[in-house]
């Protein structure tokens, strides 16, 4: 059996796939968080709840209305986007121009409310969600067994990240978004409907989280606290990547997932600490994050 630093290659490779899989979630979630923070200057603590709502929407649509996983992959993010748009228009909007702390408190409160409601109706126990038949099973790659579903999840998440990045960097909508991040009042004077842009951005960030929730449903159980557990690490990812940096969010998401997985192989007790150790080191050496730009 091939060994790498005293660990069988099979075990290492499987852990790396798990790491990339987790990293894909980190990337999707921190991407949304980063875009929202860049434009709205809101530290969106509701993000974890959006992820949870996405997973629950998929669970409910499939269990009670018979929708397929594939349909949920489209519908659930739209539901989360609609929820986010309503929250932005009715509540969050009133806090622009105030200290960022108010937005943080509001979104944290909304997250507690959503998670509380889900716990009230569904309890804390997780609900199972079937892997779609098309993606069940594994392939033998010779050095490891690759679960189809995880491979799909990694690919589709990265594709979505790439698509988002292309839109932000290379389209006129993306240029407006970047301009609004720099100086939104002037952009409004030029005739760009910035309030609408803010709503759409918040809804889009929510949709990315909801999408991640659907992807997560078949692997992790669907539970009211699934988002709360994840979001703390995602904040570390955002800080490591650099606030407001799209590339930073994607790269550091994948990197952190992978490093966590490696830590699990070589020194399991350290795995949960890894994101925060890296965050501390990055903050010490590069306070603006790996890809952060000065303001």
């Amino acid at each position, binding site marked *: 059996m091939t060994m790498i630093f005293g660990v069988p290659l099979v075990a290492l490779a499987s852990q790396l796939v798990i790491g990339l899989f987790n990293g894909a979630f980190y990337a999707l979630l921190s991407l949304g968080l980063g875009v929202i923070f860049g434009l709205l200057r809101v530290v969106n603590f509701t993000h974890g709840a959006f992820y949870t709502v996405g997973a629950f929407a998929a669970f409910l649509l499939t269990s009670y209305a018979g929708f397929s996983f594939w349909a949920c992959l489209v519908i659930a993010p739209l539901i989360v986007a609609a929820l986010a748009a309503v929250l932005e228009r009715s509540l969050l909007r009133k806090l622009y121009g105030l200290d960022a702390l108010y937005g943080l408190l509001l979104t944290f409160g909304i997250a507690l409310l959503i998670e509380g409601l889900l716990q009230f109706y569904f309890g804390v126990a997780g609900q199972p969600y079937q892997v779609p038949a098309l993606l069940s099973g594994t392939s033998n790659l010779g050095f490891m067994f690759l679960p189809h579903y995880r491979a799909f999840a990694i690919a589709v998440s990265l594709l979505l990240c790439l698509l988002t990045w292309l839109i932000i960097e290379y389209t*006129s909508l993306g*240029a*407006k978004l*970047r*301009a609004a*991040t*720099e*100086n939104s*009042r*002037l*952009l*409004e*004077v*030029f*005739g*760009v*409907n*910035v*309030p609408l842009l803010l709503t759409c951005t918040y809804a889009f960030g929510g949709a990315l989280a909801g999408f991640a929730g659907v992807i997560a449903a078949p692997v992790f159980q669907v539970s009211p606290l699934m988002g709360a557990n994840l979001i703390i690490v995602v904040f570390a990812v955002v800080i490591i990547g650099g606030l407001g940096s799209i590339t930073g969010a994607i790269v550091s998401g994948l990197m952190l997932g992978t490093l966590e997985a490696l830590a699990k192989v070589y020194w399991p007790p350290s795995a949960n600490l890894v994101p925060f150790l890296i965050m501390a080191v990055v903050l010490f050496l590069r306070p603006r994050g790996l890809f952060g*730009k000065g303001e």
Partner: protein
Amino acid sequence: MRYDPLLWVENLQGWYGESHILHGVSLSVPRAQTIAILGRNGVGKTSTLRGIVGLLSRATGSVRMNGTELIGMPRHRIAYTGIGYVPEERGIYGSLSVQENLDLLPRISDRGMSLERIFDLFPNLKERRRAAGGTLSGGEQQMLSIARVLRAGPELLVLDEPTEGLSPVIVQHIGRVLNALKKDGLTMLLVEQNFHFARHLADHFYLMEEGRVVDDFAARDLDARLDTVSSLIGV
């Protein structure tokens, strides 16, 4: 014939947060004319322009563009009445390329200038179209700031200190461009510290002091007023 100015400002009062900075500014900008507001630093010239485009935290009174009231209008709709704003700080988006800055503004009319014409007026911008806005020199930023609103197709150009901090060569260049635009019939409202620049361009002058208009006169009467103007703005 009824006097029908393009822009009509009446008793504009303005605030930044708690401080009351405009105390009833009234002025009018006739079509195809260039109006210059003169005055010392801090008398409310820039604030008047910011009040017109909706950038003060509070404003009362009346600002009518083509008869449409702008006070109370959502900020992002004001441009569509035909106003193109060139701010004092130039407002170039540093993370966007020159080309992206040029393409940023929504077209507000079919008067929008073609890229060919823009690069004709400002050849420097053509060479630097791929450069990030943040890397441009002050002069290039000013040209870009003017060029990108011209792309949108405004009827009224609102210019805040277009020559501030620029070298004489660039000031001349910008003067030539604005004169050409004036000949094409573009209406302009200009705030300018550089009195000599303004006097070659403007058809009518307003003098401001302490948040109000204290005097106004036509360009042909300028020579007779030179002493009062000099004492008021200190040229």
